[in-house]
C-alpha cells in the first residue's frame, strides 16, 4: 500500500488556513446565494413576460403601483422571516393587521382626529396581541401553528366585534394619513420607504448584532442554544411581539390606503402571502435559515406576478390557485435541496 509510506503528507500540518479568495462569476453566485439567483431569474422571466404582453407593465406608474401594493404584504413577510428563522410560524399576521387597522381609525375618530394617538394605539394593540401569541406558545406550550391559527380566528373576530363588522372612520382628511398613503420622498411612495426602513432594520438586526446570531442559533438547534446560555423564551416572545407591532404598522398603512379602518377586507390572506414570500425567499421552515434579502426578492416576484395577472385580466380566483401552487412549489424546491427522503411525514 503506497499510502502507508508517507503519512506525514496526508494532512496539512496546521489547522485551518486563511479563507481562499474566490473570484469571477462563481464567487458572485456564492455571495448572492443559489436560491436568490433562482428568484432573480424568475423575476426576470415574469417581467419579460408581462412586459411583452403589455408595455405599460414596465412603466414607472405601474412599478409604483406594484411597490405600493406589495408594501403591506412585504412588511408582514419581513417579520414572518424572523419568526420562521426562530423555528416558529405566525399565521395570525393578517388578522393582527386588520385589528390594528380598525383600532387606528376608531381611536383617530374618538380622539378628535389625532393621527399620532390613532397610530400609537394601533401599534400598542399589535404589540399586545403579538405578545399574547408568544405567551400562549411558550407558557401555554401550544404549537405555534395551532396557537396562531387560533389567533387568526380570534383577532379577526375581535376586529369585527369592535367595528361592528363595518369599515370605521374616515382618515384621509388628516395630513399624516394622506402623507402615508400618497406622499412621496425622492420620487418614491412613503409606503415603500417604510418597508425599506423596516427591512433594513431587521436585516441589520439579523446579520450584524449578537441578537441576530442568537436568533439563528436558537432556530437551528434549540437545545444547543439553551446550553449556550441563550434565553429562548425571551427571544421567542420578543419575536412574536415584534411581529405583532410590524403587523400593526401594516394595518395602519392599510387604513391610510383605503381611507378607513378595515376589519377584514384588505388584510385577509396576508398570512398566506407572507409565508409564501418567506418560503420562496429561502427560509427553512424548520428554522435557522433565511434572509431578509431573499424574502424581499420573493415579495417583488409575488407583487409583479399578481399585478401582471390583474393587468391581464385574469380572474382573482386563479390568482388564489397560483398563490397556493407557489407556496407548495417553494417548499418542494427547498426539500429537494435538502434531499429529504420521501418516507412518512416531512420533518
Amino acid at each position, binding site marked *: 500500500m503506497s499510502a*502507508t509510506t508517507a503519512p506525514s503528507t496526508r494532512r496539512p500540518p496546521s489547522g485551518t488556513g486563511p479563507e481562499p479568495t474566490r473570484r469571477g462569476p462563481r464567487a458572485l453566485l456564492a455571495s448572492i446565494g443559489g436560491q436568490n439567483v433562482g428568484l432573480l431569474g424568475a423575476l426576470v422571466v415574469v417581467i419579460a413576460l408581462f412586459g411583452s404582453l403589455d408595455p405599460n407593465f414596465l412603466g414607472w406608474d405601474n412599478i409604483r403601483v406594484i411597490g405600493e401594493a406589495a408594501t403591506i404584504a412585504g412588511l408582514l413577510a419581513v417579520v414572518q422571516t424572523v419568526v420562521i428563522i426562530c423555528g416558529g410560524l405566525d399565521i395570525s399576521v393578517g388578522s393582527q393587521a386588520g385589528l390594528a387597522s380598525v383600532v387606528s381609525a376608531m381611536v383617530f375618530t374618538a380622539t378628535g382626529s389625532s393621527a399620532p394617538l390613532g397610530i400609537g394605539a394601533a401599534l400598542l394593540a399589535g404589540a399586545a396581541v403579538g405578545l399574547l401569541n408568544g405567551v400562549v406558545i411558550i407558557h401555554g406550550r401550544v404549537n405555534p401553528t395551532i396557537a396562531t391559527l387560533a389567533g387568526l380566528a380570534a383577532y379577526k373576530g375581535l376586529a369585527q366585534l369592535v367595528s361592528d363588522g363595518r369599515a370605521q372612520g374616515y382618515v384621509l382628511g388628516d395630513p399624516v394619513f394622506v402623507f402615508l398613503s400618497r406622499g412621496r420622498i425622492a420620487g418614491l411612495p412613503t409606503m415603500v420607504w417604510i418597508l425599506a426602513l423596516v427591512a433594513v432594520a431587521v436585516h441589520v438586526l439579523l446579520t450584524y*448584532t449578537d441578537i441576530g446570531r442568537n436568533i439563528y442559533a436558537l432556530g437551528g438547534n434549540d437545545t444547543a442554544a439553551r446550553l449556550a*446560555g441563550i434565553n429562548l423564551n425571551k427571544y421567542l416572545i420578543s419575536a412574536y411581539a415584534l411581529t405583532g407591532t410590524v403587523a400593526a404598522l401594516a394595518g395602519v398603512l392599510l387604513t391610510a390606503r383605503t381611507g378607513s379602518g378595515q376589519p377584514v377586507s384588505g388584510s385577509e390572506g396576508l398570512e398566506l402571502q407572507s409565508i409564501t414570500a418567506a418560503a420562496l425567499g429561502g427560509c427553512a421552515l424548520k428554522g435557522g435559515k433565511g434572509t431578509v434579502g431573499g424574502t424581499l426578492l420573493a415579495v417583488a416576484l409575488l407583487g409583479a406576478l399578481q399585478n401582471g395577472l390583474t393587468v391581464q385580466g385574469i380572474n382573482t380566483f386563479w390568482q388564489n390557485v397560483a398563490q397556493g401552487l407557489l407556496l407548495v412549489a417553494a417548499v418542494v424546491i427547498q426539500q429537494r435541496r435538502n434531499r429529504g427522503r420521501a418516507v412518512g411525514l416531512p420533518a
Partner: protein
Amino acid sequence: MTTTPAAGLSAENVSKRFGAVHALQDVTLHFPPGQVTALMGENGAGKSTLLRILTGDHRPTQGQVLLDGTPLSLASPIDARRAGIRIIPQEPEIIPHVSVAENVYAGSLPRRAGRRLDRAELRRRITADLARLGFAKVLDPDLPGSRLTAAQRQLVEILRAFTGGTPPRAIAFDEPTSSLSEHETEALFTLIGRLRDQGVAVVYVSHRMKEIFRLADRIAVLRDGRVAGVVEASATTEAEVVRLMVGRDLAGLFARQEVATEHVVLDVKGLTTDDVRDVTLQVRAGEVVALAGLIGAGRSELALALAGDTPIRSGTVTLDGRRLDLRSPRDAIAAGIGLAPEERKAQALFLHRTVRDNTALVSLRRLRRRRFVSKSRERALAQEFADRLRVRAPSVETEVHALSGGNQQKVVLARWLARRPALLILDEPTRGVDIGAKAEIYQIIADLAREGVAVLVVSSELPEVLGLADRVLVLQNGRITGELGRSEASEEAILALAMADDLTAAPQGGAGTDTPTTATGAAR
C-alpha cells in the same frame, strides 16, 4: 493480499465516488463465515461508505459485492435483506409508543382476517424468538419503545435482523457499543460469539481497541478509502493497528503530569436533583476528575445540573468561593462553567452554521460593541482557537456539518476555551471520535489542566478514565459510591463500585474483570 474464496461476504475492487471525493478506492475485502472481522479506520476512512455499499444503501461506482461467490445486484437495503445481509445501525430506530413485540415485527405484524392484529400469534412469535436468541430474560416484550435502555434498543434491532425472511448470512454492527455500558456490552459480545459459532459472517465496526481484540478474528483497516491492511487479531498488537490506521505511533496517548493545585474551584455539597442524590464533590484548579459509572447512573444528569440546565432541589454549588444560584445555563456560563455535552450534534452544534459562528457563540458579549458584532474580531477568535486545537477545516467559514466527528468536537471545545471557563465539564469528549483526534483531545485536556482550569470528565471508556483522571468518582443510581485516587484506580475497582448493587442482581457477575490485558492505551 486477499483472495476471494467462495463462502462469505466480499467486496471486490469496490470504488465509490461522491462528486470529486473518492470515498473508497479499489477496496477488496473478504468477510468469511464463522468469523468476526473488525473494520477499523479513522473517521472519514470509508468504513461507513463500505458498510452502506455492503448493505445496499449505496451503489458502488465500480466493483461488486459478492455473497458466497455470487455477485449481488443490490439496489436497496431491502435487496440486501432478502439476500441475507443485515446491519445493526449505530443508532437504533425505535417506535416510542408501541411494545417491543410490535417494534420487532413492525411492517409484517401477524394478522387475522379483516386486518385485525393477531395478538396471540404476535406473543407466540416474540416469545419464541426471544428464547431462540437468548434474550428472554433481558427484554420484556410488552415494554413500550420509549422505556427501553440503549442496550435494549440495540437488542430490538438485532431481533429485527434475525426475524422474518432469510436467516442472516452476514451481519454488520456499526459501533454497537458507543451507547452501551460495560456490562451491556458483555451481553452483546456473548451474542456475537454465538453468531460466529452459527457460521454467520460478522462485520464489526468500532473505535474501541479493547473490544476489537477481545472479539475479532481478523482486523481490516481502511485508511483514506483504501485497504491499509488486513491482519489476524492474534498475530498483531494494538500499536500495530493504530499505526495502520493513522500511519504513525501513538505511544504517549495519555502523556500527562499531575498539576493540581490546592485551590478548590468547584465545591458541591449535598446536591440533589430529580436524577442525582446527595452528591458532594470538589474539583481543584488544574485537576482532572472523572465521573465513571454505568449508563443511567446519573453522570450526564449531574453534568447538566452543574451546567444549570436541570433544577437543583437541594444542596449547594460553590465556584471559586462564590455560592451559585443556578437557574439556567446562562447563570452557569456567567459564573465560568462550560459544558461540552454528550450528544454533540443534538446538544452543542449548529450544523448549518460556520465554524466561526459555532466558536464565537458564547463569547459574543466580548466581541460586540453596543450590539454590533465585529465579524473580523469574531473571525480572528475562531481562527485562533481553530489553530490552537488543530481543527481541520478548509476555513473558519466552513459549515460544521462538513467536518468529521473529531473536528466537530474540537469546535465545541473551542467555543468553551474561547470563553476561558474556570470549570469545564466534558461529557463523553471522545465518543465517535477517531483515534488521531482522540489523542489531540487528550492533549487539549492536559493543556487546560496545566493552565489551571478545573476539568470534570464523564466517560464510559475506562482506559480513558484511567488515563486522564487525577481522581475518579464512581456513580451508581444517582449517588457517588466511591472515590479512587490515581494510584488506586483500576478497571476492576471502578466496575466494582459502579455495579455494587448490580452484582447481586446479575448472576453472570464479574463483567469486565476477565478482560484480556491487551492495552498499551490503558497502561501509561
